[in-house]
């Protein structure tokens, strides 16, 4: 399959959206079926798989983690933060992001997320702050420890985020 560049991230020109397999568009599919469809997509050349913490919640990341585990190194995974699933509402505070990424990594059975999107902008958190959490400066933010290899935005903030 041909490839395309998302910024610096090279992926197959068609990706695979995994939300609807296990969440949000009706009852979840049988998990064996879900795993089979995801693996068949990879077999046909898809190397870009999209999920989010909030899909399910959690079940979409779990399914994708299981399906991609045998060939994790040959694919790119996109996931998303931005909701406060336990308390409700939005939350992009740096400490919250650092906490929830641990859950996403565990469910995805990996040590890195290739593209980590902010699912919704949190009006309470300036984008410059969310990108470079002040409390993490000088220590190991998620970016610096290479667990997040690329950062994505819903939209507005590209220009502001691009400057920091």
């Amino acid at each position, binding site marked *: 399959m041909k490839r*395309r560049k*998302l910024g610096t991230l090279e992926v197959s020109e*068609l990706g695979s*959206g995994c939300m*609807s397999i296990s969440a949000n568009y009706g009852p979840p599919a049988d998990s064996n079926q879900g795993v089979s469809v995801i693996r068949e997509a990879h077999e046909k050349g898809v190397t870009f798989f999209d999920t989010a913490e909030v899909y399910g919640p959690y079940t979409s990341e779990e399914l994708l983690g299981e399906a991609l585990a045998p060939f994790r190194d040959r694919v790119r995974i996109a996931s998303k933060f931005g909701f406060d699933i336990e308390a409700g509402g939005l939350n992009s505070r740096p400490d919250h992001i650092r906490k929830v990424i641990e859950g996403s990594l565990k469910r995805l059975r990996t040590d890195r997320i290739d593209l980590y999107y902010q699912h*919704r*902008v949190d009006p309470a958190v300036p984008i410059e702050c969310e990108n470079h959490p002040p409390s993490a400066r000088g220590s190991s933010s998620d970016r610096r420890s290479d667990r997040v290899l690329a950062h994505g935005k819903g939209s507005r903030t*590209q220009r502001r985020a691009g400057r920091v």
Partner: protein
Amino acid sequence: MERGPERNGVLGACEELGIGFVPSGPLGMGYLPGTIDAHAKFDPKADLRSAFDRFSAENLAANKPVVDVLKRFAKKKNATRAQIALAWLLAQKPWIVPIPGTRSMDHLHENLGAMDVPLTPADLREIETAVSGITMHGGRMNQEQMQAVDQTA
């Protein structure tokens, strides 16, 4: 179905800054393949679309002209409506990566077939002309949900 990013500066900012764009719901959240009509029922407990404006019975009926355009081009290109929709997205910019989702092996193969549907510049102009006169009815989610979606560049 959603032309906002072309007009609100988002795609322009992506191009300028070298950022890729991943359109979610590239098949209109299941509407564009043409199998969902005004009689479709969405389980309010399990299907978010039950609360989306574009999936009200009224709007499902009102938006049918876009499905009809896809049907016409599908026939012309010996493809399916889903394939035309994905091929159109792929043809817009080389840094757009659509992410169709499915739990069906058949739909997966159908979606992947979009890459074998080359749309010529003339096809793209013809599609643009055909859809430019169509008004889309209903936001892609409901108004309260859309308030949390940042649509500016």
